[in-house]
């Protein structure tokens, strides 16, 4: 059975902060939604804009057509004529795309911008091809004589004097539609982009704010792990409160189970010790155990019980709640204890532990670590034992020194050597020290041995504050 010690692994590794995080998930989802919404809005607004500009153009062409229709005359010679000049701007600009044309039978009248060319109307609007619409000009797309795309409005007037239907066509260049639409579209895109940016910034802030209680919860749990807290505070947002209650219930349950398990182990161990004591005494009678083999078995059993009792007590370290232990109180109690235990040796104890120096360890474990060191010092000292504690860096250093023979480096290393089998560790110099090392390491501390100012052994125990 190896005396190995499973150490709690640190949870605060270099974690990838955004990989698979809730925050990332929320932000990505929000980004996708905002992008889709803005694109749909852009398309819809563009479409409306297009229709609006087109409507403006159409009504302009329509009023031109109405003006033409109302001033249309047909001479006796069959020629078409207008009662007034309707070639005002922009219909007078050559090749501008702005143009009009009247056709009735063979007679044709055109705006000057057409320079005498024919404005081809789409097939379905050709003369007589369909029933006339005297009220509403019809929309159509076409190409002007120079090959430019134009918007057309076509009005077919009913035959009045037997000369056939009169068709009035007015055109506007496509650029008159696409130009303003493109210009407005650019402005729209800019405004939507700024809006999108504002939304994204707002969403990120919202997600951060919304997830802040989770971060606080993580810190609280970290403090529980570090022994600064026993429970997570219940003052939490409604969504997290049930979770926190469950965590707290789990922590309490864990503590209760741990305590119960420890009690059972302790009861078992202590229950075995009385019969063992009886056995030891019975074997002490002359002739019962001539070669000492049975006594050795009994002390082996005792060592096993002690070892596993201690393990049961310390096994849950790292996960469970840790308390803080005042070293001055602990040292004072141990000083009284050792003064009585070594009453005949008349040891002069010097204790230099200021009030308020505390370590983040269980009180019994502190007594165990410190007790073993002082016991060792008392056993080997001539007359003096010196105990001191002081803050050092992040933790506390406890020094126990005696004026005994001390240990050389090799012996010190052997005493602290780990991985030894239980039956190799005999009570005496070092047994308590290796227990102290084991306990200290469970708390993330350490034990160093060297020669001190009293020329005996100096043990320096480092523990987390």
């Amino acid at each position: 059975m190896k005396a190995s010690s499973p150490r709690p692994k640190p949870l605060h590794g270099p974690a990838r902060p955004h990989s698979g995080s809730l925050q990332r998930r929320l932000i990505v989802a929000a980004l996708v939604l905002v992008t889709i919404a803005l694109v749909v809005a852009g398309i819809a607004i563009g479409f409306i804009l297009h229709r609006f500009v087109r409507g403006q153009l159409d009504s302009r062409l329509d009023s031109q057509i109405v003006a033409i229709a109302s001033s249309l005359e047909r001479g006796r010679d069959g020629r078409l004529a207008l009662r007034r000049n309707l070639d005002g701007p922009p219909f007078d600009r050559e090749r501008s795309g702005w143009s009009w044309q009247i056709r009735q039978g063979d007679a044709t009248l055109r705006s000057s911008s057409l320079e005498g060319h024919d404005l081809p109307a789409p097939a379905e609007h050709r003369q007589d091809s369909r029933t006339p619409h005297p009220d509403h000009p019809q929309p159509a797309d076409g190409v002007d004589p120079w090959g430019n795309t134009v918007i057309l409005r076509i009005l077919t007037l009913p035959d009045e004097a037997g000369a056939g239907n009169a068709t009035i066509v007015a055109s506007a260049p496509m650029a008159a539609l696409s130009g303003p639409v493109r210009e407005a579209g650019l402005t729209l895109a800019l405004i939507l982009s700024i809006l999108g940016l504002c939304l994204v910034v707002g969403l990120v802030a919202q997600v951060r704010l919304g997830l802040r209680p989770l971060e606080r919860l993580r810190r609280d749990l970290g403090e529980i792990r570090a022994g600064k807290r026993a429970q997570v505070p219940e003052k939490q947002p409604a969504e997290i409160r049930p979770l926190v209650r469950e965590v707290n219930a789990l922590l309490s349950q864990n503590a209760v189970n741990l305590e119960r398990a420890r009690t059972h182990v302790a009861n078992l161990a202590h229950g075995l010790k009385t019969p063992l004591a009886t056995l030891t005494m019975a074997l002490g009678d002359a002739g019962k155990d001539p070669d000492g083999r049975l006594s050795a078995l009994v002390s082996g059993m005792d060592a096993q019980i002690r070892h596993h009792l201690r393990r049961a007590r310390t096994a849950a370290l790292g996960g469970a709640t840790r308390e803080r232990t005042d070293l001055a109180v602990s040292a004072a109690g141990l000083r009284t204890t050792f003064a009585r235990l070594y009453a005949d040796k008349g040891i002069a104890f010097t204790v230099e532990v200021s009030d308020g120096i505390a370590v983040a360890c269980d009180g019994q474990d502190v007594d165990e670590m410190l007790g073993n060191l002082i016991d060792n010092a008392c056993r080997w000292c001539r007359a003096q034992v010196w105990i001191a504690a002081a803050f050092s860096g992040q933790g506390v250093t406890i020094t126990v020194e005696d004026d005994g023979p001390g240990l050389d480096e090799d012996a010190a290393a052997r005493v602290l050597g780990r991985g030894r089998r239980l039956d190799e560790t005999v009570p005496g110099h070092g047994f308590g020290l290796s227990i102290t090392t084991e306990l200290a390491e469970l708390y993330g501390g350490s034990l160093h041995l060297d020669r001190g100012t009293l020329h005996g052994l100096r043990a320096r125990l480092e523990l987390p504050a």
Partner: protein
Amino acid sequence: MKLLLIEDDAALAAEIAKALRAENFALDHAINGEDGQHLGETETYDAVVLDLGLPERDGVSVLQAWRAAGRTLPVLILTARDGWSDKVAGFKAGADDYLVKPFRVEELVIRLRALVRRASAHGANRIACGPLAYDAGLGTFERDGLPLKLTGLEWRVLSCLILRKDGIVPRGQLIERVYEGDAEVDSNSVEVIITRLRRKIVPARIESVRGIGYQLLPGEAS
């Protein structure tokens, strides 16, 4: 020297009692805290061996009750609990020594003798009175450097007298420290033991102080 053993485990108590009587101690035994506390308050003992896990009343509270009542008798705690915290708690309650089960009977005896010696304000293990010397570590007597053979009762009387050699030991107290609680005490029997002892320890002598008790003196009356 008389001891009080408070231990609920019958088998262990029997072994301890056998071992301690073999070392000449007189012994009363209580099997629970209540009886133990009562005996400790009403009888005279040189030391107490106290188990902590007791029925009816645990050892620490028995000890605290004695100390609160001003009883200063030396107490050795005998327990299965071997943590330093347990020991600190025991000493804080007023214990004078602490022994963890299982233990070697030799250690128990040595610690008890040392407790009794310290309670009588003797610093060193060797206590001398004229030619007579008592080794509180080994529990043996010497006269002129040679081992002195004594019966159990004689040892109890002489150790009681030598530990209090600077004063008179009242007769009643001597009887209480020599006889076990359930023993039939003949009023003359102490006198008989003293007479036998006087022959063994010359030239040291035991002087009877009429109406009070006895005192151990180093030499012949002048």
